[in-house]
């Protein structure tokens, strides 16, 4: 079928607008990359746009030697990996029974969990609970209160429910227990959903900010989000750590940009690998509601 003139115009307009939207998502990042790789003079005089000027790694050098970024990087990694593992484990432990028809009163439990999505105690009562459990200033305060996201749990439950029932009946006849069915049949068949939720939990832990700020008092335990935020709020955080001989060759903007790059790189590394899964995962959950 040939396009009419109006349709052609529509398509051209559509492509141009989409290209502009994509550019708006990329240009700010390119700008930051360029700032982080430019020389101090070029950054201060504002000559950097999308391409590094006076190419140099000095911002990264000052960042790594002059600030505790590496320590906070390892903290972030630890928070993320352990947190994601724990969250996935307990989410599976919640979603699997709720997806089984034999499970008595699963409707009641589902409703009780969904209720907490629309009504919750809020910040202060949650803080008091965490405080009374003695979790303040430990990573337990980051992992435990957010262990299960009810929304993620519902997504996983509907993924489990959509698996054909005959397969696990066959497994049962072959002498497979509930745990065997979960480990050998349900989980391998739900890989897109598992990858999606691991990404969601992982990004959540990696970017966690408010919980770290509230529960962690020891600056040595800060993750990158909080450290970088502190660096942005006050330059003195950088100056406290920096070697005075290096001050001449660095700018706060350059170091902040370098820090932002260090924070983004791990996300960009896993994002393309998981993209096809999360699109599938989100769609799966959305249609079933």
């Amino acid at each position: 079928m040939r396009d009419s003139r109006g349709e052609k115009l529509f398509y051209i307009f559509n492509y141009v607008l989409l290209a502009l939207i994509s550019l708006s998502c990329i240009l700010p990042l390119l700008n930051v990359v360029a700032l982080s790789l430019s020389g101090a003079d070029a950054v201060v005089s504002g000559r950097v746009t999308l391409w590094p000027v006076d190419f140099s790694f000095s911002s990264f050098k000052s960042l790594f030697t002059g600030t505790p970024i590496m320590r906070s990087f390892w903290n972030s990694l630890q928070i993320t990996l352990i947190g994601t593992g724990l969250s996935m484990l307990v989410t599976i432990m919640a979603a699997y029974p709720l997806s089984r028809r034999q499970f008595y009163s699963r409707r009641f439990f589902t409703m009780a969990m969904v209720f907490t999505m629309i009504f919750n105690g809020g910040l202060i009562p949650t803080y008091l609970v965490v405080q009374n459990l003695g979790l303040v200033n430990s990573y337990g305060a980051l992992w435990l209160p957010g262990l299960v996201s009810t929304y993620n749990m519902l997504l996983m439950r509907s993924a489990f429910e959509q698996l054909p029932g005959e397969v696990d009946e066959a497994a049962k006849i072959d002498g497979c227990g509930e745990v065997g069915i979960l480990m050998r049949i349900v989980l391998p068949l739900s890989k897109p959903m598992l990858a999606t939720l691991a990404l969601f939990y992982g990004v959540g832990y990696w970017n966690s900010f408010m919980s770290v700020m509230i529960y962690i008092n020891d600056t040595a335990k800060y993750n990158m989000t909080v450290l970088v935020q502190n660096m942005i709020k006050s330059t003195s955080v950088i100056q406290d750590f920096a070697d005075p001989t290096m001050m001449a060759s660095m700018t706060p903007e350059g170091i902040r940009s370098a820090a932002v790059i260090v924070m983004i790189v791990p996300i960009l590394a896993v994002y393309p690998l998981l993209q096809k899964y999360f699109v599938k995962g989100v769609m799966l959950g959305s249609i079933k509601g």
Partner: protein
Amino acid sequence: MFVPVLLFYLIFRYAPIGGLVIAFKDYNFYDGILNSPWVGFHYFDVLFQDARTLEIIRNTLVLSLLSLLVGFPIPIILAIMLNEVRNMAFKRTVQTIVYMPHFLSWVIIAMLVSTAFAMENGMVNRIVEGITGQAYPFMYEKMSWVAIFIGSGVWKDMGFNAIIYLAALAGINPSLYEAAGMDGASKMRQIWHITLPGIRPTIILLMILSMGRVMEVGFDQVFMLQNSNVNQIADVISTYIYRIGLQGAQFSLTTAMGLFESLVAFILVFSANYIARKFGEGLW
């Protein structure tokens, strides 16, 4: 297997709901939650008689309603636009790029925003300077700050929120478009009469869900973008609870504020669902 799950929900979801009683008590550390003296609605009176807290409630409503008003239709439009792209490589590239900001933390986005809109050497202000000859303090003027606040939220999540609509769009029968095309319906007419009705249930579903979030403006977003020049418009319930509650140790007062916030959100979800049910599209 289910026991840890139950424990989690009881300790970290239901115990805090029980902890809401401190909104009606004069909480102090020595007496604890159970033994602190009752004060009834005292703290609610305090909240609703203070001009500052009323201003904070107003700010929360203004910022979130504006975000909803602007941010809700944009993912729908984006999904429809993406759905009309026939070059698959282009479509995939655009999708990969527009989904990405969703995964960046607000620290990073605030940094990108302040770099782009900086008075000196900001990319935006260099263009503005080129045209008007003068840089504009975008982050420090109330109106432009609100625009940047809304815009950054839309920028972060428009692509990601479009995924669900794209899924719904994939379910529309293509023969409807062919028939409409035969009858001479223009592209715009086809979108209006086929595409939009086709994704109506999804739109309503997401509308109900977003009503529940009207009372909460994300803490991170406000906290990172805030500055003292715009505090009058930028201080919201979540930052108030953090500052006065946690830092100022006014637990009872801010729990009352939190309870008010939760109740309004609860009522909004139920009314949205009630209205949706009148149109036969309710969530439950």
